[in-house]
């Protein structure tokens, strides 16, 4: 594995719920996850050796993911512009244990861990929401009304999980 220079840290990977695999070839390579509070993350595979697969975790936003899936931007631009300005890198073993979790800036990543400039989407997106022509809205709903709000959204045929309820 390539050496990376960052801060070894903890990250609660259990808070992430899978939405969809964006690129799958003999296993996941780029996958979309979300937190309960509506934060969007991408797991981006970067390298493997005899023991681990190394993944980069990037917090992003749904508009950026849609722009990528609909080929309006590249994976390089998406990965290079995390919401926090930082990414996490972790080595995942056969039992889905996360090791050597490291927080680092994009600038500190090896060039081989970034996609090429012309890395336009070429996968088969299984998430219709990402490929459909949609408009996103920011709404502020009291936390106590989340179940009611969710039921209304579901009745309309929209996906609740894609809406951040604050």
């Amino acid at each position, binding site marked *: 594995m390539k050496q990376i220079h960052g801060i070894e840290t903890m990250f609660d*990977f259990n808070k*992430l*719920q*899978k939405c969809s*695999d964006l*690129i*799958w*070839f*003999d*296993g*996941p*390579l*780029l*996958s979309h996850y979300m937190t309960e509070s509506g934060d969007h993350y991408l*797991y981006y*595979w*970067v*390298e*493997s*050796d*005899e*023991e*681990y*697969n190394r*993944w980069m975790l990037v917090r992003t936003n749904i508009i950026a993911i849609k722009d990528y899936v609909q080929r309006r931007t590249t*994976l390089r631009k998406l990965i290079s512009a995390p919401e926090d300005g930082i990414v996490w890198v972790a080595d*995942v*073993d*056969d039992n*889905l244990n996360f090791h050597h979790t490291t927080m680092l800036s994009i600038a500190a990543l090896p*060039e*081989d*861990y*970034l*996609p*090429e400039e*012309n*890395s336009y989407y*070429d996968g088969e997106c299984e998430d219709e929401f990402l490929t459909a022509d949609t408009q996103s809205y920011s709404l502020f709903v009291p936390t106590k009304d989340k179940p009611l709000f969710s039921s209304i959204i579901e009745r309309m045929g929209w996906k609740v999980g894609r809406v951040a309820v604050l």
Partner: protein
Amino acid sequence: MTYKYQSYIDALLLEGCAMPELYMPDGKESYRFIFLNDETRNHLPVCIMNPKRQLPGSQKLAGYSLSCFADGDKAEEKYRTLQRSFKLISTAIGDGLAKGNLCNEDGAITKENEQTSHFELFEYTTCNLNKTFTLEKKLI
């Protein structure tokens, strides 16, 4: 016939996964990515090889099948596309392209994608592609 990874497949079927429609390969010419310097890693599904490339919630039946292409040029095109997004993809899927003919004793295959020529092979227990697939081209 029993699939090579039948118990794993059965477990996923119990969880609600459904097998895709499968066909006999009938000697179909096929191409697969291989590792040039490590034959022990070749022709293993992602959920069987070490280390498994998986994430929480990523278990799929396709994790127990093998990716194949009917067209060698399209296989290489896919490799180059993956390389643009994952520069070290060779550490995961290999660095060579092998060619062979799939016979009906090897397993059952999914429908070929018309654009990419990609399809999946669910191997039977006796299948050993190391014996029948040979290097066609180095990709790096």
